[in-house]
């Protein structure tokens, strides 16, 4: 029995006296004739958050959420029930509800589960809530605020938040696999409002990952977030109206990789492709990007926000090639969609909690570096937009149309980034946009660890990244028509 499984059992099974036989019996109950897959997902989650606003750390929250989700799959049918009580009788009740999709009911015998083998964890099974004294957390928030305020007298408002979660999960599958994971996650955000001559603008920056809270005090990260938030806000004070219309766009490294997440990532999730509802359906082997583009979804990067030692179905995460030198190579899969499509799971089966069904979801999605100097990329553009920071994005996977909103951008004129322009939404067509990538930089960067992806009402932490890239033609949604 691996150490992770022992630790998980202590949190999940021992408090109510649940034992392996309860699991075996429950799985046996679900695996009635016609049911071809079933799993139990146990979760014990502790979360904590602190917020500073108007100079005062005036709120803090602590919470516990626990429960078990029980799922049965018969062909394309899924039955699902959950309980916030982790007891033998609650498990059997949920199993009865979940197997109701089957035509007839007959308990299979008990199904034994065993440790799926030792995975090398991609992060420490630490408790980020206890990784720092409460007094120090409050002190850290105050320090960050002070740094932001002292940078410039134009800084009028500072809000700082600090959040930590420890998620202990265990998956028991009808094929006998038992797997566990302990996932720490921390995040800090700094947001400022600056004012000058009656004009107000905002800037924000944050970061985090699968660490303890001391991550923010190392290498003065928290202070850097404050400086970056103030810098962005001050840049925006000078911003002019953004242009409207189609133009050449250069995207900076790191967070602008949200382009990949929206433009192609969602469209390559297995469920949409099994159903044929994605604009990328049935296009494996086709060219969907310029030959300079190679895009991966990699859940195996150590300590990253989007990384997972195992996914929420017990499958080890992977580095999956989505696009290789412009050619569409593969989809991201969970157990059900992989089986129905005759493909292998890729470790992308994720769920928001025990009370939600797993789906194929992204982990860390990024484009590999090319060989262009980023300065050369900007210098190559006569007239266009250079966008370096973004807010959120969204995609319609059926029509392929996607948007993402810039929060810091500059005009490019005669090969030089000139004055800043106000934030604007960029809109494009997923299967087309990467075919217009004409230059790829050598400066791959991943985001700082704040990404949240929403799908069907479920949120999960993700990462994105890319080098500087040039796109020959993307619609920029400003207000200045030329």
């Amino acid at each position, binding site marked *: 029995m691996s150490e992770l499984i022992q630790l998980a059992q202590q949190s999940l099974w021992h408090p109510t006296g649940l034992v392996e036989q309860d699991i075996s019996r429950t799985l046996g109950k679900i695996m009635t004739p016609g049911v071809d897959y079933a799993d139990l997902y146990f979760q014990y989650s502790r979360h904590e958050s602190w917020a500073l606003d108007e100079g*005062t750390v005036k709120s803090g929250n602590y919470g516990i959420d626990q429960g078990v989700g029980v799922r049965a799959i018969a062909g394309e049918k899924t039955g699902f029930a959950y309980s916030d009580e982790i007891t033998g009788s609650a498990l059997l009740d949920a199993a009865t509800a979940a197997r109701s999709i089957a035509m007839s009911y007959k308990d299979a015998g008990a199904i034994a589960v065993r440790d799926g083998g030792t995975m090398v964890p991609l992060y420490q099974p630490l408790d980020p809530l206890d990784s720092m004294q409460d007094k120090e957390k409050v002190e850290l928030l105050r320090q960050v605020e002070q740094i932001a305020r002292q940078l410039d007298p134009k800084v009028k408002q500072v809000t700082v938040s600090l959040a930590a979660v420890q998620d202990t999960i265990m998956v028991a599958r009808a094929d006998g696999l038992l797997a566990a994971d302990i996932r720490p996650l921390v995040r800090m955000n700094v947001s400022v409002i600056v004012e000058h001559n009656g004009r107000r603008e905002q800037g924000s920056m944050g970061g985090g990952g699968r660490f303890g809270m001391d991550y923010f005090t190392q290498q003065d990260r928290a202070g850097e977030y404050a400086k970056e938030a103030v810098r962005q806000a001050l840049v925006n004070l000078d911003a002019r109206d953004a242009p409207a219309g189609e133009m050449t766009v250069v995207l900076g490294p790191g967070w602008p990789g949200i382009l990949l997440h929206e433009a192609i990532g969602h469209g390559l999730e297995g469920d949409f492709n099994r159903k044929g509802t994605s604009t990328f359906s049935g296009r494996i082997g086709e060219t969907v990007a310029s030959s300079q583009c190679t895009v991966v979804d990699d859940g195996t990067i150590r300590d990253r926000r989007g990384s997972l030692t195992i996914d929420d179905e017990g499958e080890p995460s992977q580095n999956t090639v989505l696009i290789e030198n412009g050619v569409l190579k593969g989809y991201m899969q969970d157990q059900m969609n992989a089986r129905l499509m005759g493909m292998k799971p890729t470790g992308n089966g994720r769920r928001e909690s025990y009370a939600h069904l797993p789906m194929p979801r992204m982990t860390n999605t990024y484009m590999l570096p090319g060989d262009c100097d980023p300065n050369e990329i900007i210098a190559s553009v006569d007239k266009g937009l250079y966008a370096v920071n973004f807010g959120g994005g969204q995609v319609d996977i059926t029509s392929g149309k996607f948007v993402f909103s810039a929060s810091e951008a500059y005009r490019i004129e005669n090969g030089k980034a000139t004055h800043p322009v106000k934030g604007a939404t960029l809109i494009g067509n997923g299967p087309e946009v990467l075919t217009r990538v004409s230059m790829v930089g050598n400066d791959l960067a991943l985001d700082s660890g704040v990404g949240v992806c929403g799908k069907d009402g479920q949120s999960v932490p993700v990462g994105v990244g890319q080098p500087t890239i040039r796109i020959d033609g993307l*619609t920029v*949604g400003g207000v200045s028509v030329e």
Partner: protein
Amino acid sequence: MNNHPWHPVPIDSQESTLLEIADLALTRATDKGATGAEVSMGHGQGISVTVRRGQVETVEHNRDKSLGVTVFFEHRSGSADTTDYSASAVESCVDAACNIARFTEQDEFNGLAEPDLLATEFPELDLYHPWDLDMEQAIELAQRCEQAALDQDKRITNTEGGSISSHHGSELYANSNGFRGLSRSSRHSTSCSVIAGEGDSMQRDYWFDSCRDRNDLMPPEEVGKETARRTLRRLGARKIRTGDYPVIYEAPVAGSLMSHLVSAINGSSLYRQASFLLDSKGEQIFNRKIRIHEQPLLKKASGSASFDNEGVATKSRDIVTAGVLNDYVLNSYSSRKLGLQTTGNAGGVHNLTIDSTLKGGLENLLSQMGTGLLVSELIGFGVNTVTGDYSRGAFGFWVENGKIEYPVQEFTIAGNLRDMFMSIEAVGSDVDTRRSTRTGSILISKLTVAGE
């Protein structure tokens, strides 16, 4: 302290459990030295079924409960939540909140709502109509809904299915000033989503209905037909030339403009000076035809409540009268920060309504616009509440002489919300009542459209 207002319904056993646990939590908080405490609890249950190509795709059984507690030690506060209703878990939850309050800082504006503002009347709002919906019945309704959509036209090539869901439950808010407010509610929904066209020209759309009482739900076949109509009309979408045009927001997306208004006149945006409508009370922010008001006591409506999340009585009131901003959207904390009184909006606005300025619906609005753009879908999050700058992705239709000519896609609409509000010319009578923001289609005289 002594008078305990109760919601005037016979209490069932689950609800008496909520009341007992709330008392336990409040007593624990007082024992720990808290000078004030409040508890929000809820339990609910339901079923959701999705059918795709006539076959069951998912059957989900939901059963949820939650407890959140906030404690005050003079002006320091802490909060905690749990899903475990056992006495020991509830006590540890309160203890955790008290522990947090040891580290947060004094903030003179922190505290429970003023006792004299708490609700004392609990009119029957008719929000609770549980539906004893079994799985077979739910599957059949979802099948009828999806089939009606698929039967409409051969150009419908694929489907994401038809769905039925039904949920009901109770919520309790209790505080150490003696307030106990219990509310029950139910919600039932029918929805459908299909795809028309093939390959690069696929289009998807959806429709849904959602009600407190299943007897008020649109028949499943009607939801299916409307889904098909909305999806088919998108086929053959073109790009649009960049320029300034008048724009109509179709009723289902027009509510988003009202939510941007609420963000800007919300107490927390105002005291942080994070709003483009700072100090705008008394100012003309819309044209004189516009009235926007809250109707918290509307029977069977989506956003109805007789008290807010702090127990404060909700009020029927004008927010905008003849285009002038009358009042903000405040809770106790933000109102104290601003030196004002709470408006009973802890947790949000209740049935925010923009009155129609026309007798007719979308047709009349299209005639009034003549030539321009009808927007039926918005995507992305390009709204900056600090500056009012607005830029979102959209899907819609090109309109000439009041007639829809063809669908358009892959464009953005942009402007500044301050200008956009002022240039709302008309509001149609085609009110979307499914959500808690109630508005008909809205015509704005000019927005910048970026396309090709």
